[in-house]
């Protein structure tokens, strides 16, 4: 089973993508599934390990939390640009955040979350020490950012992924 479908999630996602880009019909379902199977087998040649997902519910929860955060930080950053950074009082700066995550897949997801949220930019991650260097547009409290990333996102990612 795992020889034919080395990455079942990717196969499913590619099939859905095929159906989205064409139209929902039985013929496209079969064709899309065949293309997705071949594509995920091709990926297994360079990436043999399956992404180990432990639970789906934390990811759903994370999706809604991040969705809300993105809307809020969009408005905050737009307001800061309009008011010229609270009339010159805005301070930006770097924050070093020690991460507990080590596996590539949850780290990639965290990178997407941090990048998609305006106001925080992922600058550098040191794989040896596990320290993430973050640039924050509107710095209020350094410790707040460490607990924000650590509790809000990282805990849920640790629950969702193995490792």
């Amino acid at each position: 089973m795992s020889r034919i479908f080395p990455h079942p999630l990717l196969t499913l996602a590619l099939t859905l993508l095929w159906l989205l880009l064409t139209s929902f019909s039985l013929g496209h379902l079969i064709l899309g599934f065949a293309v997705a199977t071949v594509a995920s087998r091709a990926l297994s040649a360079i990436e043999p390990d399956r992404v180990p997902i432990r639970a789906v519910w934390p990811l759903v929860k994370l999706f809604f939390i991040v969705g809300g955060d993105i809307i809020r930080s969009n408005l905050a950053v737009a307001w800061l640009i309009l008011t010229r950074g609270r009339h010159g009082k805005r301070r930006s700066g770097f924050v070093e955040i020690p991460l507990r995550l080590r596996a590539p897949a949850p780290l990639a997801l965290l990178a997407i979350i941090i990048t998609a949220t305006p106001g925080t930019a992922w600058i550098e991650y040191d794989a040896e020490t596990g320290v993430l260097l973050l640039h924050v547009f509107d710095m209020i409290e350094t410790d707040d950012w460490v607990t924000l990333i650590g509790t809000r996102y990282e805990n849920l990612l640790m629950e969702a992924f193995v490792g």
Partner: protein
Amino acid sequence: MSYLDTLPPWIAIPVAFFLILGSTLTLLGAFGLARLRDFYDRLHAPTLGTSWGAAGILLASMILMSWNESEPGWSGLRPVLHELVIGIFLMITTPVTLMLLGRAALHRDRIEGTPGIPGAVERADVPHRPTGEEADGEAAPEIDISDAPGEN
């Protein structure tokens, strides 16, 4: 301009709202990119365009095109969801560019010694010490020697 004229208000208002929201945020992002002074600050401005800026425009397009494709009545509903794919790819690929730019700027600032830039604790001095490889070469045989008696 045929189908746009026949658009009922309950479709036209959300389409206009999301389109204006998305394009305003994208415009503000571009404005910030031009106006902000610091390189790292500038990294933040375009993410307005790639997050809700894009999402707003894509939502407007989804509502409008779904209306355009659909026949009257619930059975004729044809939701157009292609735009989701654009949004997903935009979200996945933005971090790649952003990290590339951020790390390049960090590397430059560390070498130039710009104040206020956190240096990597161990890594920062690696380029300045070309003898590091020789030291590693000497260290490797020592480990081999110490391991050998342990195996016996």
